[in-house]
């Protein structure tokens, strides 16, 4: 029997005393404190993981700090992006837990915010307020321009990703319901039972046949299940777009969640990015079901709101970091932008041609098309116009309804 891994024998390293001793019960307390610290730093750790971590430490022993770190990492981390946080936290925590807590207090503004009084959402406040006479009915030419629909002047001055006012919320909800964006579907490779289709559903046919003494009365078929095409959305959040970006994000969030096809509601595989001077991945925000929560989370993520536009550079970081989003030339890319780009047009053209090669369609949704006689003459706009498969208007409700038809027509081409 090997006794070298026995933590009880031999001099104990200094840091083990921080971890505590399993036999005196300090060990598990420290481990769960470590788990809590990780959770506050945004690493998803739950109680069952902590219990598993305890088991893991009993397996590897606590004689080597490196092994303990590796073991805890294998158990507590489950995403690539959490590894750095974990390692820093591990080093800090087992050198000095107090220091780690101080670090954490500075690092995570979320903790401070939660301590404050809960803020009610504008639409909750609006719902509780007495009704005012003469509420304008939303009509089909309602502008999707935040500056024009909003009555709340204070909010306009903030010019930030804010929560929706009650009016805007109702508008977005109604839009999402009324304007079905019929995102195209293709016949997927998974199958389901049906009456048409080239393949026989032998299982079902035989089960039916066995009930009739082995006679095949009906041939059940396998038909291909419809599968929505994946969607990649790039939303411009630069200064010139700030009036549209919020409402359009909210609209896209609500309307591209599901697609109805063949009597089924299918979830859409969508990836959403915001771009201005830098590219921001909004996947985490878009996974939230509530549109308000999505906007709030997106606001926290986006650091370059109402700044400049460098679409070319942003596409470079898309290619470098997120090219896994574009699978097998199936993706439909929606670029929501006014095309007022300050980067080099050559770079933009090169990156756009890469994007085109990797996707099925690149559609440019341009709110500036509201102005009569608009010509995409700005440098970036000219490139976008040349490279995109189509330029579509998105500034009001009736245009959005047309958008649905336009996408369908484009896909048939």
């Amino acid at each position, binding site marked *: 029997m*090997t006794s070298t891994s026995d933590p009880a024998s031999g001099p104990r390293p200094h840091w083990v005393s921080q971890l505590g001793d399993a036999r005196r019960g300090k060990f598990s307390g420290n481990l769960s404190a470590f788990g809590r610290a990780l959770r506050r730093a945004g690493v998803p750790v739950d109680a069952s993981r902590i219990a*598993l971590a305890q088991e893991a430490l009993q*397996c590897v022993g606590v004689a080597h700090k490196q092994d303990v770190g590796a073991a805890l990492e*294998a158990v507590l981390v*489950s995403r*690539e992006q959490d590894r750095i946080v974990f390692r820093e936290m591990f080093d800090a925590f087992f050198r000095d837990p107090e220091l780690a807590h101080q670090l954490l207090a500075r690092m995570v503004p979320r903790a401070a915010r939660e301590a404050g009084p809960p803020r009610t959402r504008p639409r909750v406040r609006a719902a509780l307020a007495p009704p005012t006479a003469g509420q304008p009915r939303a009509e089909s030419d309602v502008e999707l321009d935040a500056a024009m629909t909003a009555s709340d002047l204070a909010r306009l001055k903030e010019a930030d990703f804010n929560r929706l006012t009650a009016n805007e919320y109702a508008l977005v909800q109604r839009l999402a319901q009324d304007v079905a964006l019929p995102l195209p579907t293709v016949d997927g490779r998974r199958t389901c039972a049906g009456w048409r289709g080239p393949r026989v559903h032998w299982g079902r046919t035989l089960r039916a046949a066995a009930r009739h003494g082995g006679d095949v009365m009906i041939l059940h078929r396998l038909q291909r299940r419809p599968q929505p095409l994946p969607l990649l959305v790039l939303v411009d959040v630069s200064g010139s777009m700030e009036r549209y970006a919020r409402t359009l994000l909210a609209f896209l969030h609500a309307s591209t969640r599901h697609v109805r096809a063949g009597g089924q509601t299918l979830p859409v595989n969508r990836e959403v990015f915001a771009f201005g001077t830098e590219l921001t991945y909004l996947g985490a925000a878009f996974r939230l079901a509530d549109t308000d929560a999505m906007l709030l989370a997106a606001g926290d993520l986006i650091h370059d709101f109402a700044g400049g536009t460098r679409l070319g550079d942003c596409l470079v970081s898309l290619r470098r970091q997120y090219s896994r989003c574009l699978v097998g030339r199936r993706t439909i890319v929606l670029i929501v932008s006014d095309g007022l780009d300050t980067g080099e047009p050559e770079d933009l053209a090169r990156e756009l041609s890469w994007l085109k090669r990797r996707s099925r369609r690149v559609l440019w949704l341009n709110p500036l098309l509201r102005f009569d006689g608009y010509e995409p003459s700005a440098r970036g706009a000219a490139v976008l116009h040349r490279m995109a498969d189509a330029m579509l208007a998105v500034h009001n409700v009736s245009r959005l309804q047309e958008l649905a038809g336009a996408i369908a027509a484009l896909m048939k081409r």
Partner: protein
Amino acid sequence: MASAGASAAPAGLPPGLDSIDALMTALEARAYFADRRLATAVFLALRLGRPLLLEGEPGVGKTELAKALAGVLGRDLLRLQCFDGLEQREALYEWNYAAQLLHLRAADGRMPAGDLEQEVYQPRFLVRRPLLQALQAPAPGAVLLIDEVDRADEPFEAFLLEYLGEYQVSIPELGTVRATVAPVTLLTSNRTRELNDAVKRRCLYHWLDYPDRERELAIVRALVPQAPEALARQVAAFVQQLRTAPYDAHFQRAPGIAETVEWARALVALDTLVLDPEIVVDTAGILFKQRDDVAALDPALVSGALRSAEQAVA
């Protein structure tokens, strides 16, 4: 004895694999050079009986690990390659309908319908796919590799969740099949999409990085023994440079370990003794598989990287 922690290996772990070091040595004997972090994760997966989810860039040795581990444990490797549209009948089991139909015809009229139904649902009409094979593998069990699980869709993940939790499946016509020996399960993902949190919670997780220079050199030495030592060193150092700044910015995808090994083999086949920019450019198609990347590897860049590689070695 008991106070020293769990010292007895649990059932299914062969003797001699009771520490992380032993596992590392055993893997090395199979020409798999794991770093200590990875070895710890694998060791824990074995001891705790949890599946291990491996993520990392393509070509860092995720699949190879499963092969090496199967060799070390003396278990069969069962591999389920996931793809878009993978269904239960390709992953788990399917009835051999043609044989059943023939049997129905032959037995026609000789027995009542109820018996007939039982007659066609016998184990011999069952076509076993990898997930079922893994449950029914005789002792010492199997190593189950569920490769590129991100390519399958979410309903399959949900099914997998149940499978990985219980290691049992129920076949309506036959009853429940329970694992005799729970398989050692490895899942790999290339992160074309994020996996479901529930699946991740069930698994231990390890992100496989590219190896450091020493480890890559060891791999080249082990897999291309005919390469001269000086060349092997140069190859490892050069590829290492391509993966780090400032050179990595020129490429869409850095070469993986598989590419390094292939390249070393190619250089040996060309009787190369020392790397020079010309031979690197000529063989660029082995390191890079995209036209833009091959084009980016011009002589100026190569000689720069070769110089930095030499400095790094020195």
